[in-house]
């Protein structure tokens, strides 16, 4: 319903009109300019602005169009972007940013480019925090007390209280004050969300009738003109067709290759498969409102009963890491000392027996006449083969230890309501995707139990609550690390989820693309440095 197949003209050759022959070395490096990059996305972006968008496809496009005050380089260190330098005063409560004076907004057609000033920064913050703006960013910037413009190129942020790693949070994308129709708040009705202008290396040229997003290089980009002339984001409704499009050179890059296509592409010399770590993991979540699942030994038995390594090997070509706790393994908060529990069905049965269960005549575990027969709710997506595999294998493993699992596939909205609103489920399967913060308070703090809140399983443990609050308040990075390690250990022991794995994502691209560096979460952060050798520009 959401993804009716559309006719995709994959074999249409893209005519790459070489733009004006720009001088090589304009960026101060020797790499040539020119060429076009067509990349395939599975699905279409809803909006193209950095405020209202909440899907990964939009996020990748906004990364090309916009800049933040600060950026993050390939070594995960903070570098100046729109702000050329900053000062931190009053024990970390006051941040003053000195902005670059040579930055201009992308010009609208028939207009001159307007300069970027402190007004835009203040405006972006105001729009973001306006109650009528619907944005996932709001909660992340509640730590800011106020923002003031000192002069045209200086802004000061005052924080409510000093927080750790505050500087990284100023990487939010700045939007132009003159760009929006409504000057108070931003909704998806504003024309800006479909025709944004920014300061970034690429400018939106147009969106075609097939929802191809065409971006052209910004000749006046303040870091120097990006090498590749044109970026074209092409939506696909079918991952198989997208894979074929890459094979037949109709597109040059797939940002996220389906795991089942990895072996085929890896064996093909025309393509490069570049792994990048995504801060995400998959899990089975327990509903602790079900009295059968209150005992942590029962929950742990589930984790012992399944062979995660075998699933990872069989379904994902071993492209991933098994995890033991609630943090993304790429994160500094992840505790490597906590080992994932091994596959041990015997131990699982022992734990269930310890918890008072006995096997009945049908080979199903039973306690006080209640069978350990649970539903497992899973959302339907068209491309859900991996999900189906994991769910079926899970059912199979648990059957062997005497637990009956009934998978129930549901339409996406119905699933969401059952999990987040009605809490009407026993087990669920899902994945979390994190940004770079290591904040898991919304997942496991008992204050987060309720309608549409993230602690849908009603997990409540005073010790965990205490650790979460403590980690939030501390300003010392080492201390926070220690707390998070303890938190990891505690949650691994309580087992509110059966943690599965984090998968290695692969971008697959034609090897004519050079110097490709990928940001794990935002993807195109370094795309202005990618280039295509002159001979392969078509």
């Amino acid at each position, binding site marked *: 319903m959401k993804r009716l197949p559309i006719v995709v003209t994959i074999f249409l050759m893209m005519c790459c009109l070489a733009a004006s022959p720009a001088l090589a070395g304009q960026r101060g490096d020797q790499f040539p300019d020119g060429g076009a990059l067509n990349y395939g996305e599975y699905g279409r972006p809803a909006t193209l602005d950095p405020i209202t968008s909440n899907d990964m496809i939009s996020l990748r496009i906004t990364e090309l169009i916009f800049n933040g005050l600060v950026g993050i380089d390939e070594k995960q260190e903070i570098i100046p972007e729109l702000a050329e330098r900053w000062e931190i005063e009053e024990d970390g409560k006051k941040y003053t940013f000195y902005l670059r004076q040579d930055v201009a907004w992308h010009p609208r057609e028939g207009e001159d480019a307007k300069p970027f000033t402190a007004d835009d920064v203040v405006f972006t913050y105001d729009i973001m925090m306006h109650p009528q703006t619907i944005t996932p960013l709001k909660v992340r910037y509640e730590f800011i007390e106020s923002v003031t413009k000192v002069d045209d190129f200086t802004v000061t942020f005052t924080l409510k209280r000093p927080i750790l790693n505050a500087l990284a949070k100023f990487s939010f994308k700045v939007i132009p004050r003159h760009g929006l129709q409504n000057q108070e708040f931003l909704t998806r009705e504003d024309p800006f969300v479909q025709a944004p202008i920014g300061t970034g290396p690429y400018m939106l040229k147009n969106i075609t009738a097939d929802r191809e997003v065409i971006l052209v290089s910004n000749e006046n980009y303040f870091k120097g003109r990006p090498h590749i002339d044109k970026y074209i984001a092409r939506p696909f409704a079918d991952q198989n067709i997208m894979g074929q499009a890459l094979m037949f050179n109709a597109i040059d890059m797939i940002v996220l290759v389906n795991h089942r296509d990895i072996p085929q592409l890896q064996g093909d010399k025309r393509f490069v498969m570049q792994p990048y770590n995504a801060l995400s993991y998959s899990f089975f979540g327990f509903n602790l409102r079900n009295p059968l699942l209150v005992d942590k030994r029962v929950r742990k038995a589930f984790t012992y009963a399944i062979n995660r390594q075998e699933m990872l090997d069989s379904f994902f070509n071993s492209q991933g890491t098994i995890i033991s706790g609630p943090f993304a393994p790429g994160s500094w908060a992840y505790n490597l000392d906590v080992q994932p529990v091994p596959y041990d069905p015997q131990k699982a049965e022992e734990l269930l027996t310890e918890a008072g269960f006995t096997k009945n005549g049908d080979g199903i575990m039973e306690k006080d006449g209640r069978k350990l027969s649970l539903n497992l709710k899973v959302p339907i997506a068209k491309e859900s*083969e991996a999900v189906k595999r994991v769910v*079926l294998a899970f059912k199979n493993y648990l059957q062997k230890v005497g637990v009956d699992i009934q998978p*129930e*596939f549901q339409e996406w909205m119905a699933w969401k309501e059952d999990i987040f609103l009605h809490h009407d489920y026993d087990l669920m399967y899902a994945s979390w995707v994190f940004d770079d913060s290591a904040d898991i308070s919304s997942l496991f703090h008992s204050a987060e139990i309720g309608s549409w809140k993230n602690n849908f399983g009603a997990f409540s443990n005073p010790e965990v609550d205490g650790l979460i609050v403590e980690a939030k308040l501390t300003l010392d990075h080492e201390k926070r690390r220690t707390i998070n390690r303890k938190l990891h250990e505690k949650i691994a022991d309580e087992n509110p989820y059966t943690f599965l794995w984090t998968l290695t994502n692969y971008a697959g691209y034609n090897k004519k693309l050079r110097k490709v560096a990928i940001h794990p979460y935002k993807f195109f952060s370094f795309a202005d440095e990618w280039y295509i050798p002159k001979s392969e520009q078509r």
Partner: protein
Amino acid sequence: MRRFSQYAFEISDVSHVSFWKKAGPMDRVYIGYGLLVVLLVVISYLLGATGALPYDPQEINLELIMAPPNTGGHLLGTDFMGRDMLSRLIISIQAYFLPGLLAIGIAIVFGTCFGVFAGYWGGALETATTYVSNLLNSFPRLVLILLMVAAFKPDIYYIMIIVGVTNIPVVASLIHSKIQFLKQKNFIEAATALGLNNCTIIFKHILWHNCRSVLIIQATLGMAEAILMETSLSYLGFGVQEPTPSWGNMVQAGSNYFMQGKFWPSTAPALAILFAIMGFHLLGDGLNSMLERKGDR
């Protein structure tokens, strides 16, 4: 009373020659082929019930995923969970048979009722029936099904209820026009004059003697339609859900590997769909010409 009804029977134009003898040679082939498909359905149930399948269709073998045909005793290979294709293929027809019957039942029973109301009595009833039929016809079926799935759950029985309901107007209009045609032949008037009650006239003289071929054909086509509908829904992910096998979800799962050269997991169920649908259509076709031949004795 018996004599009167016998008399009415005579004028309603039905001979006593066996239908099979009246069937042309091609019709016999068609019907034979169709009946073979029906027989295979019965065999599928028998094999499923006795457990005489080559493998357990639910048995997962992660060491043997997407094995090509004839590996390790798997005649048609294995699917994306290492389950035996042949066993799943055989058992799959059961995913359609009872739900398909439900769809057919709804369409035939309610369609006939509406058709008789509109055709036999006419007047205000005819107008009302036409309105209801138009109303049902104006809903796109796929949207109705997707709404049903969103509101309840993706269950094949729910889907088949919609398929049945949306087929009511088709059956109703067939019966309606047939009755209007029969009314011109005056035997209904004769039967009424002889004092037969409406019930006898409708069930015996109209439906049994003159409409059964239409209804049988609708029923066979309905089964083919049920299979096709489930297949297209499976492509969107809303058909029969795992772990229950259906040809639709097997084609869908296999299609992911088609481009990689692994054609067997989608080809085998696709062929099964082709032959089954052909069987039901030919059965309907054969029965149609056989039952319609009654005029030329």
